[in-house]
C-alpha cells in the first residue's frame, strides 16, 4: 500500500517518522513530508501519487480543529476524499474529534504504532495488558550479620552479654502483661489479671466503658461498609523501580483512623509503594496497657489494638510489607506480640532512641526491649532500628553505636535486624557544615561506615531527606526523589519516604501528597536507572570519622560495663546533644 505521511505541524513529526519506519519495514511505499509543508503542496502530491492512506499528524493543540477541518475540505474539493482514506493522529487528537471532522480514523496520545498498523492493514489489534505481579520480599535475606572487624565484634559482644546478663533476672509491667496477653489470645480469661498491671485510662475503658479523649468506637455497621469498600478496590500493581530490584519503598501511616489509614495504604499501593509502617499515637507510649476493639482517634497516630491491626491487615495487598512500630513506649513487647498475631512482617525496636528521644525510661525500655527482641526472634519478625535521635542533635556516630548494639543483641537472640540510618539534614550536620556543599557526601558516609562494620540490610528512614522538606510541594517531592535516587545508587535495601505534606504541620496528610512523592521517586528511579551518583572525596573522610566515632562510643560503653547507666550518663548522646533520658516507666523494673 502507498502512504503519504503529513505532519500538519510547524515542527513535530517524530511519531510520523516512527510510523514511516514501521511501514517501510513491512514493505509499504511511503512519502514522508517535512513539517510545515503547505496544505496545497500536500494536495498536489496526493493527486500525483494517489496514496491509499493519507496519514496526518498534529501535536500542537492550538487551532488544531480548524486546520484539520480545512485540510479535509481541501481533500474533498480535490476529489481525494473518496479515493484515499484519511487518518489523523497526535497529542491534540481524540477519536471523537477525528470523527466529527470527517476523518476515517483518529489516534490520540499513547497510541502505539502497532495499533495504527493494525488499522491500516485491516488486522486486529489487541492491547497488551501488562500486569505486574508483585511478591513480598524478605529485606534481611542474604545478610550474615557478621561484624567485620574483630575490634568492633569484641566490644559489641561485651556490651550485649552485659545487657543480657542484666536483663535476665529483671521484669516489668509490660513483660508481665505480654505474658498474660499471650494466654488471653489463646482463649484464657485473664482480663482482671491484665488490668491489675494497667494505668487507670485502660482500666476505665474496660470496666466503665470510658473512652480516652478524642477516641471513638467504630461500629459494626462502619466495619461492614468498610470491608465492602475494600473488597471492591482493584488496581494494576505498579513497581516504582526501573532497572534495579532495590530499594523497596515504604510509606508511613497513622492518621488516627483505621479507615483513613486503609485508604492511604490502598492509594499508596496503587501508586507503587512496597510497604507501609504503622505509627501509633504518642500518648500510647506513655500509658501502661493497651486498649481493645476497633478505635478511631481524632489526632495523629493510629491506636494499637489487635482489632485495629487486623482491620489494617485485611486491607493490605498480599505483596505489601507491613511494619508495626513497637519500640518507643511502655507497651513495646506487647506491641510486638500483637503485630505478630495480626500478621505484620516487620516491627521496629530501638531501646537507645526510644529512651533518649522517645520519652521512655532507659532502664525500663532496656528490659522491655530485650524481651521484645526475643519475641521478634520467636515470631520471625525482623525489626528495624531507627536512629531518629539524630534529629534531636545526637551525632550520627553515637546514634549508630546504639543501633549496632541493638542489632548485635538481636542477632544473639536469634532475631534479624535492619539498620536504619537517617538520610537527614540533622542539627549535628548543620553545626559542623557536613552538608555545606551537598546532601550526598555525609549520607553516603553513613552507609559506607555501617557497611564496614556489619553485614546487615540498610533501610534509610524515617523518612529520607528529613529536615530538607518544605511546605512547597514541588520542592518536597524533589528532595525525597533525590534522596531516593541516592539510596538506589548505593544499592540500599529499602527506604521510607515522606509525603509532600511532610513539612505541613497544621493539618492531616492528604492522599494526594502521598501520590506526589511516589510519582517523584518513580521518576528519579527512571532517570538514574543503573547509573550511580558519585560522592566527592569528603564522603570517605566523613565515613572514617563516623567509624572511629562509633568505635570510641562502644569502647566507652563497654568500659562502663553497664548499658543502662551508659544511657543515663550520656554515652550514647548527652543532654547538650539533645539526648534526654525519658521518664515514662521510671522505677517500674523489678527483679524476678
Amino acid at each position: 500500500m502507498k502512504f503519504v505521511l503529513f505532519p500538519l505541524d510547524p515542527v513535530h513529526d517524530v511519531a510520523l517518522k516512527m510510523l514511516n519506519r514501521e511501514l517501510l519495514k513491512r514493505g509499504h511505499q511511503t512519502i514522508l513530508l517535512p513539517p510545515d509543508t503547505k496544505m496545497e503542496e500536500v494536495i498536489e502530491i496526493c493527486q500525483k501519487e494517489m496514496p491509499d492512506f493519507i496519514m496526518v499528524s498534529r501535536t500542537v493543540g492550538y487551532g488544531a480543529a480548524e486546520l484539520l477541518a480545512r485540510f479535509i475540505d481541501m481533500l474533498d474539493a480535490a476529489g481525494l476524499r473518496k479515493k484515499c482514506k484519511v487518518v489523523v493522529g497526535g497529542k491534540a487528537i481524540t477519536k471523537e474529534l477525528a470523527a466529527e471532522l470527517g476523518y476515517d480514523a483518529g489516534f490520540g496520545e499513547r497510541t502505539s504504532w502497532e495499533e495504527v498498523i493494525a488499522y491500516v492493514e485491516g488486522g486486529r489489534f489487541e492491547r497488551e495488558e501488562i500486569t505486574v505481579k508483585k511478591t513480598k520480599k524478605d529485606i534481611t535475606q542474604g545478610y550474615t550479620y557478621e561484624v567485620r572487624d574483630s575490634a568492633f565484634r569484641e566490644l559489641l559482644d561485651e556490651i550485649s552479654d552485659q545487657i543480657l546478663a542484666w536483663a535476665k533476672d529483671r521484669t516489668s509491667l509490660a513483660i508481665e502483661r505480654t505474658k498474660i496477653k499471650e494466654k488471653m489470645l489463646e482463649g484464657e480469661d485473664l482480663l482482671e489479671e491484665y488490668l491489675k498491671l494497667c494505668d487507670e485510662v485502660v482500666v476505665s475503658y474496660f470496666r466503665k466503658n470510658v473512652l480516652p479523649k478524642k477516641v471513638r468506637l467504630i461500629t459494626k455497621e462502619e466495619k461492614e461498609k468498610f470491608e465492602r469498600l475494600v473488597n471492591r478496590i482493584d488496581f494494576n500493581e505498579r513497581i516504582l523501580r526501573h532497572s534495579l530490584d532495590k530499594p523497596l519503598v515504604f510509606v508511613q501511616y497513622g492518621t488516627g483512623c483505621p479507615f483513613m489509614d486503609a485508604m492511604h495504604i490502598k492509594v499508596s499501593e496503587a501508586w507503587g509503594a512496597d510497604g507501609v509502617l504503622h505509627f501509633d499515637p504518642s500518648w500510647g507510649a506513655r500509658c501502661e496497657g493497651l486498649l481493645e476493639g476497633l478505635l478511631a482517634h481524632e489526632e495523629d497516630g493510629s491506636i494499637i489494638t489487635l482489632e485495629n491491626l487486623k482491620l489494617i491487615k485485611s486491607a493490605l495487598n498480599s505483596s505489601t510489607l507491613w511494619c508495626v512500630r513497637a519500640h518507643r513506649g511502655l507497651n513495646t513487647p506487647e506491641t510486638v506480640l500483637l503485630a505478630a498475631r495480626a500478621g505484620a512482617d516487620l516491627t521496629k525496636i530501638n531501646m537507645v532512641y526510644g529512651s533518649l528521644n522517645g520519652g521512655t525510661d532507659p532502664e525500663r525500655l532496656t528490659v522491655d526491649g530485650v524481651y521484645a527482641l526475643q519475641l521478634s526472634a520467636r515470631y520471625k519478625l525482623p525489626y528495624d532500628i531507627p536512629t531518629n535521635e539524630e534529629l534531636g542533635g545526637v551525632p550520627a556516630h553515637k546514634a549508630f553505636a546504639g543501633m549496632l548494639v541493638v542489632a548485635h543483641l538481636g542477632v544473639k537472640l536469634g532475631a534479624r535486624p535492619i539498620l536504619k540510618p537517617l538520610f537527614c539534614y540533622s542539627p549535628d550536620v548543620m553545626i559542623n557544615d557536613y552538608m555545606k556543599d551537598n546532601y550526598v557526601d555525609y549520607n553516603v558516609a553513613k552507609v559506607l561506615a555501617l557497611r564496614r562494620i556489619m553485614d546487615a540490610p540498610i533501610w534509610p528512614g524515617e523518612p529520607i531527606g528529613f529536615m530538607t522538606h518544605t511546605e512547597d510541594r514541588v520542592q518536597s517531592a524533589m528532595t525525597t526523589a533525590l534522596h531516593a535516587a541516592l539510596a538506589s545508587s548505593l544499592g540500599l535495601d529499602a527506604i521510607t519516604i515522606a509525603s509532600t505534606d511532610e513539612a505541613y504541620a497544621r493539618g492531616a496528610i492528604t492522599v494526594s501528597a502521598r501520590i506526589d512523592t511516589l510519582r517523584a521517586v518513580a521518576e528519579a528511579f527512571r532517570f538514574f536507572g543503573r547509573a550511580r551518583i558519585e560522592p566527592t572525596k569528603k564522603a570517605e573522610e566523613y565515613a572514617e570519622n563516623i567509624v572511629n566515632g562509633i568505635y570510641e562510643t562502644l569502647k566507652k560503653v563497654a568500659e562502663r560495663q553497664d548499658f543502662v547507666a551508659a544511657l543515663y550518663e550520656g554515652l550514647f548522646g548527652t543532654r547538650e546533644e539533645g539526648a534526654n533520658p525519658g521518664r515514662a516507666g521510671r522505677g517500674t523494673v523489678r527483679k524476678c
Partner: protein
Amino acid sequence: MNLLESEVGLMIEKIVDAIDIETTLLCKDEEDAKNTAVQYLKSLGFNDVDVVFVEHNGFAARIRLRAYVFRPGDRYAWIFGGDAR
C-alpha cells in the same frame, strides 16, 4: 475501579480527604495572598480551610490552598454514602 459509582453522585463525596488549589495571585504580600485565598475558599462553602504554602515574590504569590472535606475520624462519604456529608 468504578468505586461507589452507583451510590455517590457528587464529586465532593468521592474526595478521600481534601481539595488543594494551586494558583498564582497578584498581591502585595503573603498576608494579602493568604487572606484573599482563605476568603475565596470560604465563599465556596468550605469551612475547614488553610494555606498549605505561599511564596511571595515582589508582586505575585504562588499559593496552595487546602479545604479538608473529610478529616481522619469523620464519617467519610466514600464509606458511608451521601448521608455522611
